């Protein structure tokens, strides 16, 4: 009978060591759970980014429609005097010229922002592209609303005139011109609404970036 020479030493686990040990044991399932949550967030972000791209294309179509509708207005009335020919086109009013120029800038911006949107689809956790999109979208909202609001004021004046300022309502004569121009203003406001929705989408995608 040999007594074993091994001595058992009871090492009392201190609190410090327990704290140090617990993450080692617990990290494996926690990391797996975090990975699953991150994957789900990435999936939701990807869905948001795809919806963002679709809305961007819709805004591009609407802005292009507004610019083209305003830019191709030209109406000549079928009667004329010896000296004047009654015609109306968009460049008779500087506000409409501003409208066409601003909508052209908006169309160009929306085309250039499609690659950023695609980058956001491919990389759902990217922060910088989304941040860039938000800030530029906000600036473009201001530009579009500026163009649309000023043209809406002129269109309202053309429809109703103003007695106190002695401004005649020119729509009574140039009916086709007025319709075209009003349609362009409506399309511009639709673009503004879509852009606001785009900003909110980018913001909600930013919140799940981890």
């Amino acid at each position: 009978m040999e007594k074993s020479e091994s001595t058992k030493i009871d090492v009392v686990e201190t609190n410090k060591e327990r704290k140090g040990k617990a993450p080692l044991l617990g990290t494996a399932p926690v990391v797996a759970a975090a990975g699953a949550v991150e994957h789900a967030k990435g999936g939701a972000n990807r869905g948001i980014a795809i919806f963002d791209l679709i809305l961007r294309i819709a805004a591009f179509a609407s802005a292009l429609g507004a610019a083209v509708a305003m830019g191709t207005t030209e109406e000549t009335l079928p009667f004329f005097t010896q000296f004047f020919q009654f015609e109306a086109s968009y460049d008779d009013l500087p506000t409409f010229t501003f409208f066409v120029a601003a909508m052209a800038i908006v169309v160009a911006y929306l085309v250039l922002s499609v690659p950023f949107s695609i980058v956001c689809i491919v990389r759902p956790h990217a922060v910088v592209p989304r941040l860039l999109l938000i800030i530029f979208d906000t600036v473009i909202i201001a530009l579009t609303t500026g163009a649309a609001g000023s043209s809406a004021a002129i269109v309202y004046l053309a429809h109703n005139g103003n007695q106190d300022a002695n401004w005649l309502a020119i729509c009574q004569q140039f009916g086709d011109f007025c319709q075209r121009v009003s349609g362009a203003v409506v399309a511009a406001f639709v673009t503004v609404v879509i852009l606001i929705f785009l900003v909110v989408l980018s913001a909600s995608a930013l919140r799940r970036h981890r």
Partner: protein
Amino acid sequence: MKAGALELGHASKVTATVPQKGVNRGMSILDLFLRIIVIIATLGSAIAMGTTNETLPFFTQFIRFRAKYSDLPTFTFFVVANAIVSAYLVLSLGMSIFHIMRSRAQASRIALIFFDAAMMALLTAGASASAAIVYLAHKGNTKANWFPICQQYDSFCHRTSGSLVGSFIGIIIFILLVLFSAVALSRR
């Protein structure tokens, strides 16, 4: 060794989040300060436009030559839009203070971004519509036979042109507000 390394890692993570929270808090305070500036700007614009009243010193037997903001519906819309934006900003001051105290709030920041963007669009629409009318009042339009009324109503014109400035300053600051909220969202 491994336990020690883990503890060190945990400690470095704590020190890394403190400056992040500090920057978030700084941005929230700047957000509150900018909001107060926009309140003053839009309220000033609304009051400047709303108190326009110019009566010319001559009159005929039937007509009295007077210009007020309510003669042009666009200016009425301008005053109303500025008033609405001012009221919204006063209400959102509370939300801004809440964000200073709780830097990790997310859903409320998104709601704030949405309302900020919508109010910015409203303000821009009012300001740009009034700018178009002011331009017309200054220059007129020969093709539409619209006479530039500024040649007669000088003080009215000056007042309306000046009240646009506050609105446009408000628009620029609104863009900054949306940017700050977005950056604070992304740096959680």
